[in-house]
């Protein structure tokens, strides 16, 4: 008896409350968040989508841009030179590439920092002796490590490319803010416009325009952020096909087995 009394009133009240709540909440939830940085236009990357794969010549050109320009401030501290074999270099080439870098090698007898040529098992570490030096050299900001930048940067490769090519031609440092760039967080970045026409010379004689450099270095950084992505997708296709085949066999077996069972 009691239950029957409770039931309609409960549902009526509950339903009414829900309806009222939904009406009140509707407008509140639908409101967009605060003004975000400008959305970067979508680019047609070689590695885009579940079946994309890295354009390795572009990755290698991107390394040239990184080594020639970005590396003067940014590090790839989780990456070692030997990892670069996966972008299509031989071990000898990696050794030669490493030898063009200088890395810290402890202190000498007078307590001064020593340097030596890098070896394949060295990391692509920062060119500064520490975060304090980096901060002092860059107006109070430490240039971020780029090991996972495409993964952690909101907007990923598209936004990185847009940032690199998004400076006004006459960009000047605004004191206390940095350089205007509509794709940066807060529309200002501490990074001066990094790319200039012809700042690097590509081995394959592709003209090094700013757009080309930005495309290549973004592809390189995307590869550095997910170095095994191509293998991962190949494994996925192989394993997927194998599992499909096995599943079909088991569907047949299962149907034959259960066909003898009357419901």
């Amino acid at each position: 008896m009691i239950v029957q009394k409770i039931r309609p009133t409960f549902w009526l009240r509950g339903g009414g409350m829900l309806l009222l709540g939904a009406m009140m909440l509707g407008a509140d939830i639908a409101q967009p968040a605060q003004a975000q940085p400008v959305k970067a236009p979508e680019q047609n990357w070689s590695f885009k989508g579940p079946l994309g794969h890295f354009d390795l010549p572009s990755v290698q050109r991107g390394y040239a841009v990184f080594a020639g320009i970005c590396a003067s401030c940014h590090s790839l501290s989780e990456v070692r030179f030997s990892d670069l074999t996966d972008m299509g270099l031989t071990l000898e080439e990696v050794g030669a590439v490493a030898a063009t870098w200088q890395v810290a090698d402890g202190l000498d007898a007078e307590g001064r920092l020593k340097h030596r040529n890098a070896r394949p098992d060295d990391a692509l570490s920062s060119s500064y002796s520490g975060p304090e030096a980096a901060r002092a050299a860059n107006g109070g900001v430490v240039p971020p490590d780029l090991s996972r930048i495409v993964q952690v940067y909101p907007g990923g490769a598209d936004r990185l490319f847009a940032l690199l090519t998004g400076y006004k031609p006459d960009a000047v440092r605004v004191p206390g803010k940095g350089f205007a760039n509509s794709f940066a967080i807060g529309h200002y970045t501490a990074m001066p416009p990094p790319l200039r026409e012809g700042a690097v010379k590509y081995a394959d004689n592709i003209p090094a325009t700013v757009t080309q450099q930005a495309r290549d270095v973004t592809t390189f950084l995307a590869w550095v952020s997910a170095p095994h992505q191509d293998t991962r997708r190949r494994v996925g296709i192989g394993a997927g096909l194998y599992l499909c085949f096995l599943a079909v066999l088991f569907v047949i077996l299962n149907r034959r087995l259960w066909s003898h069972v009357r419901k």
Partner: protein
Amino acid sequence: MYPISGVRGEKGKMAATPARHTEQAEKEAHSFLQQAGAYARHYGRLPLPADLNWWWTIGAMLVAVLVLMLLSGLTLTLAYTPDASLAFGSVEAIERRMPSGWLLRAMHMTGASFFMAALYAHLLRGLYYRTYLPPRRSVWLSGCGLLVLVMVTAFAGYVLPWGQMSYWGADVAAKAVGAVPFVGQGLEQVFLGGESPGTPTLHRMLTLHFLLAFVIIGLVLVHVAVVHAKGSSSPSVQPEIRRKYLPFYPYFTTRDILAVLVMSLGFVAVMCFWPGLITEPANYRPANPLHTPADIEPEWYFLPFYGMLQVVPSKFWGLLVSGGAVAVLFAVPWLDKGRRIANSGLARLADAGALLACVGAAVTAAAAGVHHAQGGWLLAGQAACLVYYLYFLVFLPLRTRFEGKEA
């Protein structure tokens, strides 16, 4: 019954010479194999209700993922360093340089999400088909125990890579523990091993993660053994005597393998093509105690409880509501004292509707957690908490009463 007793009786005589020794070892090995074979035959012949549907294959999926988690986890441990200054780098080295390390870590990460997803599905199966009714209360209770252990293990594992979310997740969890009256401060100290997360926390989390993995395996064996002892539940409305039964092998083993294969296809798809579904980008930034991320968010499987923690204004009551959401599952066999699944179509529809409302409430609470319980989400989250608890504390007991009237 088994020849092992005979071997024992002759032990003294047999140990006399080395030759005899090998003979005895052989015999013992033989008897062990016989015993294992007897077990396998016994389990193979186990009669199961012929009307089990595909929801009853999730257990097999869970076992498959658990084995994968154990194997990948053991190999990952070999290359992991539990130290605040080295942990992030060691995980990066696993991903970048350890042979197939990226694959092992991808399997372990995807496995965690798939295990929790399958576990929630297994739980919902139990709630909908009322598999907790007597005589299977012990099965339900051991399952709830497993759920709690798996959640603790998943949390401890998420701290280990020492990215930003690992660090700040540990920080938030520690503060939540600290909100417990009287003992909270002490518990927080024990949990962190200091004032803030650091190397001692990593040692604690690695030990907990590693230890609980084996406790879970032990409890899974108990869970399965209890199912075998009590007999399997069934979606059928018929009384147990009138049901048809089929042996576990080959009918249900084949179906279980097929279900595991289908799940593996989904697993491979997520792991290889859409890993973004289960990875949190912020956790690829190394832990930085000086920089609090704008959005501290747990993995998706904790979001409902995280949301409940946030929508309650008081820290302590938030903890109680959020912890109680799991604890109330233990009480389900006593809240719902019915006898079997509902007979009429209408009642089953009501059951399904109520369960859907409960799931919807959990999803809403999760969404409120994602949106920091701000503005309308605060009210929506609070309503979700109410609906969630109404299902357990009002709907389940009431359902029993209705049934009492019908009978």
